């Protein structure tokens, strides 16, 4: 293998040991994928001139690109290894598990397809949890999107006061959903938290009954927590989108003298569509996978009324059935549903972008 000349675009390929006397070791690299009947493998660097190199590049796979391939792989290899080991392999494992009898304590006990799936569909909780997850996702997204956009519009101008405001709104984003949930768990508690007393003063039930004690209270309590935690993050994404709208557009519109509302609906919102679509996808995908907040705040209660699909996976695996096969089957269903939903969303996003 001759060293690339320094004028070479991918001169960075010099990471490869270029004075490698052992040709066979070269064969074991990724470059081996390309047939290497290289006539001038032993030729000294001086003889491999640039014109000749270019001629060979046209011919097909040049040595340059093989060297580039090798260097590229050296940089990509750590990520590729992790992907294979902890992403591709578990996907295979989950499919195998979904078709097997596989209990928490007993381990793998052979193929039983499609038992896990039939048992899953026999459980009325499945339908209930899917319905609840969808309801929660819709509610969260419908509230979070306008709140985040409103906040972004309010604080987008670079002023001292706005910087302060922006920071205040962003602070909850530093918390984990788990710690935010623990915090709101305390806030909602009748013993130490102020919320019950405030609601009582406003004519609510009060007493020792927690906000989280009723199905609707549990749902709304969680939605409020999530909006509080995520509003800043989505505001930031909206601000990025707003900044991308060129000032000239607004200047031009000013000539017509539209009101603020008109400017918002006929200029800002249409131009912000890609951002809105992206934040919506993030919110929908995130909410469909809700777990921490419900695990901590409601435990899926009261009466399983706030059981999400991801919580059901956990429950099947560790609490009720202690059946990893069933949990894996539900994981596979959720995985497929998410791939379909995300693909549809991304396609919609792309179509939307093309229309611009």
């Amino acid at each position, binding site marked *: 293998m001759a060293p690339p000349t320094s004028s070479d675009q991918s*001169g*960075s390929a*010099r*990471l490869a040991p270029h004075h490698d006397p052992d040709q066979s070791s070269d064969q074991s690299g990724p470059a081996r*994928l390309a047939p290497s009947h290289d006539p001038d493998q032993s030729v000294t660097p001086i003889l491999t001139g640039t014109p000749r190199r270019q001629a060979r590049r046209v011919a097909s796979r040049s040595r340059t*690109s093989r060297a*580039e*391939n*090798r*260097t590229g*792989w050296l*940089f*990509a290899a*750590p*990520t590729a290894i*992790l992907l294979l080991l*902890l*992403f*591709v392999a*578990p*996907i295979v*494992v989950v499919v195998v*598990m979904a078709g097997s009898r*596989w209990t928490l304590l007993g381990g793998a006990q052979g193929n039983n397809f499609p038992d896990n799936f039939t048992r899953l569909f026999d459980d009325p909780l499945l339908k209930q949890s899917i319905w609840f997850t969808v309801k929660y996702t819709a509610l969260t997204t419908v509230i979070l999107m306008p709140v985040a956009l409103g*906040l972004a519009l309010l604080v987008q101008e670079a002023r001292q006061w706005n910087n302060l*405001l922006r920071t*205040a*709104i962003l*602070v*909850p*984003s*530093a*918390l*984990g959903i*788990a*710690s935010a949930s*623990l*915090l709101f*768990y*305390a806030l909602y*508690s009748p*013993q*130490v*938290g*102020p919320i019950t007393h405030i609601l009582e003063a406003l004519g609510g039930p009060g007493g020792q009954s927690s906000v989280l004690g009723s199905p609707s209270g549990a749902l709304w309590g969680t939605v409020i927590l999530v909006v*509080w935690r995520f509003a800043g993050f989505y505001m*930031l*994404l909206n601000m*990025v989108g707003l*900044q991308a709208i060129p000032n000239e557009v607004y200047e031009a519109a000013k000539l017509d003298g539209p009101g603020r509302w008109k400017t918002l609906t006929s200029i800002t919102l249409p131009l912000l569509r*890609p951002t809105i679509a992206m934040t919506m996808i993030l919110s929908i*995908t995130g909410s469909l*996978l809700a*777990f*921490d907040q419900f695990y*901590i705040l409601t435990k899926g209660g009261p009466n399983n009324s706030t059981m999400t699909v991801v919580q059901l*996976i956990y429950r099947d695996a560790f609490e009720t059935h202690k059946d*990893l096969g069933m949990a894996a089957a539900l*994981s596979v269903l*959720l995985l497929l549903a998410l791939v379909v939903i995300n693909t549809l969303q991304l396609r919609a996003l792309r179509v939307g972008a093309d229309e611009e």
Partner: protein
Amino acid sequence: MKASVASRSVYYTLTTVMAVVFVLPLVWAAVSSVSPSPGTAQKHGFGLNNYETLFSYGYGLPRYLMNSLIISIGATILTLLLAATGGYAFARFRFRGKNVMFVLVLSIMMIPYATLLIPLLVWMKDLSLQNSLFGVVLVLTLFQIPFGIFMMRTSFTAVPRDLESAALIDGCNAFQAFRRVMIPAVRPGLITVGLFAYLAAWNDFMVSLYLLSMNNAPLPLALVNMRQQTMGVIDYGSTTAGVVVLTIPAVILFLALQRHYIRGFTSGAVKG
């Protein structure tokens, strides 16, 4: 903005209320954790009794904090390493299987870990990473890969190729050019990726819930467990104290790096 005094004061009142709404719960947690309340360790007067209870719970607060730190720092370092090398590979090289790998990275965003924790639980045993902090580091790193790689690819693409060429002419090899020239050029991107990785790992609950036992529990898992331990009676005092301990480092880091973070964000990656 030519706004009247009235509309300006409405604006300031409104925005002040908003700022308070977002910050107040955190202030409440801090105050409540040192305030007297029946059913907590802090029975009379203000003091740190709740923190003392928290300190000696289970394997002890230092142990849980150490677990949290190991997981967070480990995941940050590994994420930075992979995002930088992988992002560079995607930005500058053509290599076989690049497209397959790109699709795989994209699929991580589509197939979130919530669906893979059941197989990971089993698979980790096969890898001898059962109840292992390093195993959790690997999983958390994997799910930072899409954001990390795309962010770094965008950052590397923005660096002019002349910079590398110059380094290579000066006698650097590809790896030296990468480390000495490219890495310093993409610092804002790295800070953003690192901050996200750190916060995600520090705040993780679900991955450690599935993969770790209590002796290796990070702080969030320990806190949730602590709350549930005493049958029926919940110690809200040490729970809020725990939330404060968990929140302070995250918020400090977040505020300290806010400028970088917003800059990193606005300079691409998310622009879509």
